[in-house]
């Protein structure tokens, strides 16, 4: 099922995909592997950028932009701030028992195998990707869908963000010890 890409005759898009995918996987791995949390965060930012690149590749420009803003911009900054706030570095990393590592690797292998096996077993994918030519992912269309069909969840999402904001403020406020 897995088609080995024919690099010799690869089109530009294919090459871009391969590069992006490689970057995504590598940085994701490095995020986990790196001992220094700061490095991890930075690798993660790169990973997010590459995913945004995938979005561009898939012609989802709006989502790609939002992704960069939210993830690389907001979330990762939050991570970095927190890491710095806690002053984490390599030395604070505790020793991991071998059994943990072994368990992690085993389950990694297991879940990969299972997921891949599922997709291999699932119905073959249609070879031809027809296109109706309809516009479905421009900002205009997305806005209409979001504010018509998904208006209520959209509003809820805003409420959620508000609540999250209040919650995080409350949580990170220094507790006044009342006796």
């Amino acid at each position, binding site marked *: 099922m*897995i*088609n080995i890409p024919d690099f010799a005759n690869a*089109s530009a*898009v*294919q090459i871009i*995909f391969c590069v992006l995918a490689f970057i995504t*996987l590598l940085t*994701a791995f490095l*995020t*986990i592997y790196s001992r220094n*949390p700061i490095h*991890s965060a930075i690798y*993660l930012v790169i990973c*997010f950028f590459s995913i945004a690149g*995938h979005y561009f*590749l*898939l*012609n989802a420009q*709006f*989502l790609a932009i939002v*992704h960069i803003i*939210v*993830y690389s911009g907001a*979330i990762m900054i939050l*991570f970095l701030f927190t890491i710095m706030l*806690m002053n*984490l570095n390599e030395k*604070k*990393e*505790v020793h*991991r028992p071998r059994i*943990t590592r072994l*368990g*992690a*690797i085993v*389950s*990694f292998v297991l*879940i*990969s195998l299972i*997921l*891949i096996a599922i*997709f291999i077993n699932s119905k073959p*994918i249609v070879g*031809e990707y027809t*296109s109706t*030519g309809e516009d479905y*992912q421009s900002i205009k269309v*997305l806005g209409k*869908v*979001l504010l018509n069909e*998904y208006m209520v969840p959209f509003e809820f*999402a805003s409420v*959620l*963000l508000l609540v*999250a*904001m209040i919650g*995080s*403020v409350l*949580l*990170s406020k220094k507790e006044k010890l009342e006796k």
Partner: protein
Amino acid sequence: MNNILNQIGIENYIFLSVILFCIGVFGVLYRRNAIIVFMSIEIMLNAVSLLFVAFSTYHQDAEGQVFVFFSMAVAAAEVAVGLAILVSIFRNVGSITIDNLKNLKG
């Protein structure tokens, strides 16, 4: 209209996101640092989002992207609250190694 998937194929996206997801799982299990675990979770979320977008293109339907949009909102909220919790844990315990957090021991 020229569809990008004609050149790349949806299965490649599937494999990409599966592997990405598994890396996330691996991170969650492998690392003891709560912040890294958090990051791994973000990786898993992104893996799923990527698949959403890929299938959105595949089905020529905007809804997949809308869902990614919502999941981003949730992820943002989650990170905000989660990190706030981590901060307060760090303040109280002095460490964010998850091995030390055993208050739930039965």
